[in-house]
């Protein structure tokens, strides 16, 4: 079996979640690799929309920022910042959005604002950017994150982007048009969210990973699905394509 890095694994598992003809709001780094990988495999008509207003980009190199000029030259369309958020995101035109963050809790609430208190921060993080807007408006939120105990927490210090709050009932009260958190993909496993309660639930263990290892790195008693799947290992094809997308290994590690 082929060797691969944790980042390669996460990119590949995330790419498999994307269906042909879906519209994906793409960030730089891992999500960009996942979307471009999916496009070259099962989802040739994936519609890539970037936060910077570019649509249907055709980059000739790895984009190094969300507003890289290579995302504009040869794109299908480009619009202003307010227009991107208004016509595409608020317009309900996006199927899948990727989010990351410093902390995530069992209902998929995400903190990318501050560690400690807001007024007297221990560590000040960059803040929402478009994250809260994406969480509120896309049909499926996919979170990609290393599976570390400091990232998976009982309660986030600051709720930058709403997940299911403290459960699906209270989330329904927000009347957001988005579908909320859909999957959390780590280097250890894939978790989805319970249909009725909105609680994060282990559904698939990545190759060679045990349930115990996942639980060790999750500070609450992690719910598991009735039947836990085994994530299929990355194929040669998946690895070849993803490596060609990031030849300098800027994001693949």
């Amino acid at each position, binding site marked *: 079996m082929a060797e691969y890095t944790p980042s390669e694994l996460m990119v590949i598992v995330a790419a498999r979640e994307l269906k042909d003809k879906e519209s994906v709001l793409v960030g730089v780094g891992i999500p960009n690799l996942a979307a471009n990988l999916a496009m070259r495999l099962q989802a040739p008509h994936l519609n890539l929309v970037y936060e910077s207003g570019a649509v249907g980009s055709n980059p000739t190199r790895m984009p190094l920022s969300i*507003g890289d*000029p290579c995302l504009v030259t040869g794109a299908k369309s480009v619009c*202003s910042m307010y227009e991107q958020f208004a016509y595409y995101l608020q317009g309900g035109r996006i199927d899948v959005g990727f989010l990351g963050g410093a902390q995530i809790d069992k209902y998929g609430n995400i903190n990318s604002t501050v560690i400690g208190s807001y007024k007297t921060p221990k560590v000040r993080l960059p*803040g929402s950017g*478009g994250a809260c807007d994406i969480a509120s408006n896309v049909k499926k939120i996919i979170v990609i994150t290393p599976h570390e105990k400091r990232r998976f927490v009982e309660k986030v210090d600051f709720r930058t982007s709403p997940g299911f709050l403290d459960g699906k009932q209270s989330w329904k009260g927000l009347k957001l048009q988005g579908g909320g958190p859909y999957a959390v993909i780590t280097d250890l496993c894939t978790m989805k969210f319970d249909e009725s309660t909105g609680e994060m639930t282990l559904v698939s263990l990545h190759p060679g990973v045990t349930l115990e290892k996942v639980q060790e790195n999750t500070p609450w008693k992690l719910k598991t699905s009735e039947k836990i799947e085994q994530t299929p290992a990355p194929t040669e094809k998946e690895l070849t394509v993803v490596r060609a997308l990031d030849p300098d290994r800027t994001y693949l590690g």
Partner: protein
Amino acid sequence: MDSGKMMTMKEAVSRYVKDDETVYLAGFTHMIPFAAGHEIIRQKRKGLTLCRATPDIIYDQMIAAGCAKKVVFSYAGNPGVGSLRCFRRALEKGVPNPIEIEEYTHFGLSGRLFAGATNMPFLPMRTNAGSDLPANNDSIKTIKDPYTGDEVSIVPPLRPDIAVVHVQRCDENGNAHIWGITGEQKDAAFAAKKVIITTEEIVSESVIRSDPNRTLIPDFVVHAVVQEPWCAHPSYTQGYYDRDNEFYMQWDDITKEHESTMKYMDEWVYGVENREQYMKKLSAEKVIKLLPKACYSQPVSYGSV
């Protein structure tokens, strides 16, 4: 027609940027007017409220130089690299001076600017609900939608005192063609009370009039026009020069301490008189590396009837 708007960056900043004002240096990754920020630093402006969705390196530098009293923003990171260390130092340790912050989502902040540009009383939007942001920002309010009875989040218009907007080309009056990522360029120009346009090239009015749909900013909202090639370096100008990603990564090291930051500032900001001198300090190799190959748009005919 010479409208008398053409001037140097030094004149434009001296005439239009005042202490304690609210400033918007526009550009979402693209065409950030670094040369204007540096001139503001050289002219030692104080007490500014700096507004930008992405403060980026330019505001990090202005904060380190002590120009800022407050930052209004939605993403305070070094895009693709990590933290803005000067911003954090001011916020976490009060170095060189404490700053206030006022924080939104990207949609919220770009919405405030759009509402300012179009003079809306307020802007309803589908975001903020469920986030802790509104509880920490009194400007984000809710209102009852009379059509559905639902609670809706709203933000107020943003009207900066002064906006600086960099463009690829404009005429002497400031009619500006912009392409690539158009970010908040138009909204900043319409929202602000005073507008400085900085441009890579001055072209004749006939070039502008050959493609009116490309003119995002009309002359009559513009107060000053500054011809300033390479104004946006280390950010980029689509079709003119690429982003200097190397510098964005170096900034992380440069800003590890306030002292090392100020050493950079002494050399590259205080140590030069203007952008021309700044560019002379860059190596030819660097400049050549940033130059793109030409890649032209297919023309359209407007027809003459």
